[in-house]
């Protein structure tokens, strides 16, 4: 039986294959996560940020239950969870972190705009690397090139964030509340960055991302419901808001769906190449976000050339820093650290070593997965019904949208979805 710590030539070949898959998943995640933020543009048409966040999380909730049903079946999710039941706690907590962070991003978008807020909350990869170093000993014993790459990349990202912040303060007149927007965006970055602690914990144990993210939904749905009820003034007030805004509810719901696809790719990247490479790669979504903002929504028009230079230069610097971090990982020391971290989990929570080893390699521990049942078809049908009903009520928001660029970016997302889905199925069977 293979145990963590054992290593063969076959393992190394498998690791290279999983590495390439993880890198591709990180890039695919970037495209989809950027697309998911586009519907939050609706907050500029006087819709409560809490209503937008609630609908986005509802879309994510519906998608998270229906997509695993489509891909592997719900029975497989519960069967996987029985191998490491303690991770349900971290799944729910990660959902709470995401829902709170997502609500903050909506305040940030409203106050300083998508193209300015986006890079600020994408500083979450720095937080993730910090937690990885402190809690999972990711950089301990690493070569100096890797340390230089990570620390240098982090400094470049910080410089980029400063440039963006400067641009945010100069464009204050266009949105108002710039300081509040910057605080909200940085707070979201801290929450999203800390969300990688549960992610990391789940994937060093080998859990399937589809399983982990299913429990994540309970945390995110419960948190956003409580936030909406508390801040809007109770269930009646929330219902009145939803009814009043029914014509736009579909768009954040769609954003939630896009986010789930992006996050699934991000989680597979985290599982197969770790936080230090997977998260910075998926955080290049800020560049795609900039394309959406400028090409599709026509943001940043009428500002000075200096502000354009700060925003674009800052975004490019942040992406370059992220790439430096992504490319500076020393594979063997990282895999060695993964095995040590996995051993801690096995010792503390009494997890089957065979399960951990096989799942870390993207293989199935049992004699084949559970079959899809009637409950899966009910979940899929309910999801289609909810999306269909809200889609039928939807009206296109009254804002200038460049349809040709919208189609081009959507096509790019579709291509990486098909390519990524086929690769995940072939190499790991979505494990």
């Amino acid at each position, binding site marked *: *039986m293979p145990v963590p710590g054992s290593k063969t030539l076959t393992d190394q070949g498998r690791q290279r294959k999983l590495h390439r898959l993880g890198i591709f998943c990180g890039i695919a995640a970037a495209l989809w996560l950027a697309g998911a933020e586009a519907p939050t543009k609706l907050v500029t048409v006087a819709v409560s940020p809490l209503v937008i966040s609630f609908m986005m999380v509802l879309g994510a909730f519906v998608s998270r239950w229906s997509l695993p049903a489509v891909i592997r079946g719900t029975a497989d999710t519960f069967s996987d969870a029985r191998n490491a*039941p*303690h991770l349900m*706690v*971290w799944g729910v*907590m*990660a959902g*709470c*972190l995401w829902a*709170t*962070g997502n*609500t*903050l991003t909506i*305040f940030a978008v409203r106050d300083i705009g998508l193209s300015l807020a986006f890079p600020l909350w994408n500083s979450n990869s720095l937080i993730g690397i910090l*937690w990885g170093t402190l*809690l999972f000993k990711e950089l301990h014993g690493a070569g100096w090139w890797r340390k230089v790459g990570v620390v240098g990349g982090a400094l470049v990202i910080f410089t980029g964030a400063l440039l963006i912040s400067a641009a945010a303060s100069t464009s204050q007149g266009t949105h108002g509340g710039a300081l*509040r927007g910057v*605080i*909200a965006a940085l*707070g979201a970055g*801290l*929450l999203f960055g*800390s*969300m990688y*602690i*549960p992610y990391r*914990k789940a994937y060093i144990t080998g859990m399937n991302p589809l399983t982990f993210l299913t429990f994540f939904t309970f945390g995110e749905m419960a948190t956003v419901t409580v*936030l909406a009820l508390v*801040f809007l003034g109770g269930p009646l007030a929330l219902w009145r808001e939803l009814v009043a805004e029914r014509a736009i509810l579909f768009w954040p719901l769609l954003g939630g769906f896009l986010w789930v696809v992006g996050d699934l790719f991000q989680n597979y990247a985290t599982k197969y190449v770790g936080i230090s490479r997977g998260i910075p790669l998926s955080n290049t979504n800020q560049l795609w976000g900039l394309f959406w903002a400028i090409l599709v929504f026509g943001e940043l028009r009428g500002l000075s050339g200096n502000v354009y230079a700060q925003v674009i230069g800052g975004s490019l610097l942040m992406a370059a820093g992220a790439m430096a971090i992504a490319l500076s990982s020393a594979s063997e020391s990282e895999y060695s650290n993964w095995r040590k971290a996995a*051993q801690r989990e*096995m*010792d*503390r*929570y*009494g*997890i*089957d*070593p*065979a399960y951990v080893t096989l799942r870390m390699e993207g293989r199935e521990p049992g004699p084949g997965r559970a079959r899809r049942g009637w409950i899966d078809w009910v979940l899929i049908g309910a999801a289609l019904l909810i999306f269909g009903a809200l889609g039928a009520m939807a009206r296109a928001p009254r804002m200038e949208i460049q349809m040709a660029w919208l189609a081009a970016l959507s096509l790019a997302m579709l291509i990486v979805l098909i390519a990524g889905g086929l690769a995940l199925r072939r190499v790991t069977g979505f494990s």
Partner: protein
Amino acid sequence: MRLRSESSERPRSPWKAILGDVQFWAPFGVLLLGLLVLALIQ
């Protein structure tokens, strides 16, 4: 058959293992901080 690694460091109950884990308290603390920030800027 389910094999488990044995360790003298393993807490007796799952909840004790979770509540004694710094990897639980770090994100939980950040969550409380985030909720505070949200309440202040709302």
